[in-house]
């Protein structure tokens, strides 16, 4: 049993009209014999049977139309009644059939064809129809030519355009800031400093929206940080806008602690000549060590990266007594004890609890003690001595995704180490680019107490310890 479908007779055809059935229902038909005459949008075409058998049913009557692919007739079984026999062997192809009836053009002599200009047209159309039917038979293909626009992946056509749009590259040292023309114009109009705008376009290009967002940001009211900080793993800060003051300014009174902090920081910054030294430290091993350590101990004894840094700094200070010192009215005081101040930011204040004799404590002790210290400070239960005796301080903003920053020395110290975030970076090792974890630290130094080379060497020692962190456990 074979279905005869409405063939696609031209590329633009959608439906075809049955002009004439050349066989009657019940009549035998041989593969290749003209079966039906169809009107397409281009011409009237005789369509041959593509299977042999009895024309068991005509589905679409003469004068009616049907879309491409619709069944227009059924041919059941082979000619002569032997059902389901495959198509007639090649030797019986219709061209060789002597008993072909009707006045099919193929029956005309070549000479007759040459005399009739329409004949070649008809033949060409027939060939086209055959191509269409063969394609259709081959796999029910609806679109023998080209097909519908069903591609979902990008083709060659857009690849070149995409290559331009997605061209990689970011801002490198000394490289020109990437700014789209419209962003540059808007920034000028709205007085936005492009150096402060983060580009979200391809390759970090600053786009229109980025400038618009920055312009909006700068006109927002002053916001306060309402989130509670922990040294371990704070959630990303949620900034909430405070209501606008009804008058021109809102006067905020300082607490006693805030006044003290303000005074001491101003005194430090304006009396101690600061200079800054930055270093990048490979933290791969330290991160790994912390992981191994925390797998081995109870959760209450788990160490943070900050604990590792405290330990490394404390050990480095044992080798650099000139760093563990204070400016004291025209003289330098070197300290016997190594007490590390750990800056803790709270919503309304800045506190620096002090971890005493950090060089003599194990990592575990540092972890447990600093956790208690910070907790006491956070809950306002800290004793006065918790804040006293610092000889060197650490300020860590790594958990806030800060790359690097400079801190103000916490008096009476002569140095403070500012810790940035650990970043996953492509690094070059032995000529290979590999993934690495890098952290930037910046040492602020009171230039009166020690100098650049000492600062650099001290940083080198901190770096060495963090890069070979087994030294911190021993």
């Amino acid at each position, binding site marked *: 049993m074979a279905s005869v479908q409405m063939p696609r007779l031209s590329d633009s055809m959608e439906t075809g009209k049955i002009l004439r059935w050349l066989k009657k229902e019940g009549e035998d038909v041989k593969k290749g014999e003209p079966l039906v005459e169809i009107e397409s949008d281009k011409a009237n075409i005789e369509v041959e049977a593509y299977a042999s058998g009895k024309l068991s049913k005509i589905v679409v009557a003469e004068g009616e139309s049907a879309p491409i692919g619709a069944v227009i007739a059924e041919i059941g079984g082979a000619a002569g009644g032997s059902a389901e026999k495959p198509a007639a062997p090649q030797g019986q192809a219709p061209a060789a059939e002597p008993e072909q009836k009707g006045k099919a053009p193929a029956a005309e002599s070549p000479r007759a064809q040459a005399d009739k200009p329409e004949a070649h047209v008809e033949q060409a159309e027939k060939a086209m129809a055959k191509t269409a039917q063969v394609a259709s038979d081959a796999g029910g293909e609806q679109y023998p030519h080209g097909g519908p*626009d069903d*591609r979902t992946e*990008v*083709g060659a056509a857009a690849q070149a355009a995409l290559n331009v*749009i997605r061209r990689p590259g970011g801002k490198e040292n000394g490289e020109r800031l990437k700014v789209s*023309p*419209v962003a540059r114009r808007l920034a000028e109009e709205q007085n936005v400093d492009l150096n402060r705008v983060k580009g979200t*376009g391809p390759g970090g290009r600053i786009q*229109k929206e980025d400038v618009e967002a920055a312009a909006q940001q700068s006109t927002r009211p002053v916001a306060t940080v309402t989130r509670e900080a922990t040294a371990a793993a704070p959630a990303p800060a949620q900034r909430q806008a405070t209501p606008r003051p009804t008058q021109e300014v809102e006067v905020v009174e300082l607490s006693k602690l805030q006044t003290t902090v303000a005074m001491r920081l101003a005194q430090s910054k304006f009396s101690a000549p600061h200079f800054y030294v930055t270093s990048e430290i490979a933290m791969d091993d330290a991160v790994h060590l912390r992981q191994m350590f925390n797998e081995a101990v109870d959760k209450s004894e788990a160490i943070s990266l900050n604990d590792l840094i405290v330990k490394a700094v404390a050990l480095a200070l044992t080798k650099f007594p000139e760093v563990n010192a204070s400016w004291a009215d025209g003289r330098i005081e070197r300290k016997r004890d190594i007490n590390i101040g750990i800056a803790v930011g709270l919503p309304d204040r800045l506190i620096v609890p002090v971890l005493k004799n950090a060089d003599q404590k194990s990592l575990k002790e540092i972890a447990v003690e600093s956790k208690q210290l910070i907790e006491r400070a956070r809950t306002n239960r800290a004793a006065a001595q918790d804040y006293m005796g610092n000889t060197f301080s650490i300020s860590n903003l790594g958990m806030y995704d800060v790359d690097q920053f400079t801190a103000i020395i916490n008096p009476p110290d002569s140095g403070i180490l500012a810790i940035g975030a650990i970043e996953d970076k492509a690094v070059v090792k032995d000529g290979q680019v590999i993934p690495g974890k890098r952290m930037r630290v910046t040492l602020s130094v009171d230039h009166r107490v020690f100098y650049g080379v000492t600062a650099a060497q001290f940083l080198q020692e901190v770096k060495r310890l963090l890069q070979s962190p087994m030294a911190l456990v021993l």
Partner: protein
Amino acid sequence: MAVLAMRDALNQALREEMKRDQAVFLLGEDIGLYDGSFKVTRGLMKEFGEMRVLDTPIAEEIIIGTAIGAAMSGLRPVAEMMTVNFIMVAMDQVVNAAAHIRYMFGGGTKVPLVIRTPGGGGHQLGAQHSHSHENWFAHVPGLKVVAPGTPADAKGMLKSAIRDDNPVMFIENEGTYAVKGEVPDGEHLVPLDKNEVKRPGEHITICAHSRMLIIAMDAAAELEKEGISAEVVDMRALRPLDMAPVIESVKKTSRLITVEEGWRSYGVGSEIASRVYEEAFDYLDAPVARIGAAEVPAPYNKRLEKIAFPGKADVIITAKALLGKN
């Protein structure tokens, strides 16, 4: 207003102009007895006779040359090239004669000629039958070049082209002849030098003409579902190139994609991009993205052909990339 296929809209324009003006006649291969390879001239030989619908030999240079002579003598010929790929042998007539004559004669004669010819691929017809070359003609002063993408524009622009006193390259597309659309009855004229926004939008501008206009409209409809509002500008008037709606649109959206069915290099999109850089540089938020055919002779293989010509997916993915959404 009737809904007509593009081929029937063109047929209507030809019939109306032939009725209106005795000087209008058609010539080309298979356009009479066979009703035209794409049935655009269906029934016209029967209606107007063999004097006004001429079946010619397969000799493009002679077709165009004859048409130019007829035009210079006061007739208004509409010559059909079966596809734009076959016009190569007649390029001397098109460029050196049709485009230049009016200038070389100091305006003493004119060439009111229309050359209708389809470009476009995607039908597995191989490299010699599948290309789009409108950019070649749009390069030449003295020619007008139009490429409508809707049946209404096809009718209106063909009528305007026949009435124009200059040689007009009227570029059709094999893939659009069956595309249907509403077509105003009777006297409907669309200017040859005005492009227009076919779909308004906010976030990105897409320029396209002919079949690519349809692709662009489809892509815009899908982008809309994803919250991207694309403005589609129909670039039906290629020479003279009407940039006004594009510039206006880019000033609003700051991002532009050009889509054409021909090759990208030295293409329609290249010209549009240059004009935008000249006239709207300070409004751009990203480089202009040009989509065109792959830089190869059109492949015959069906799968290769599919990725060689621009499709909806190319426009959608490029639009998202320009907006940083993928």
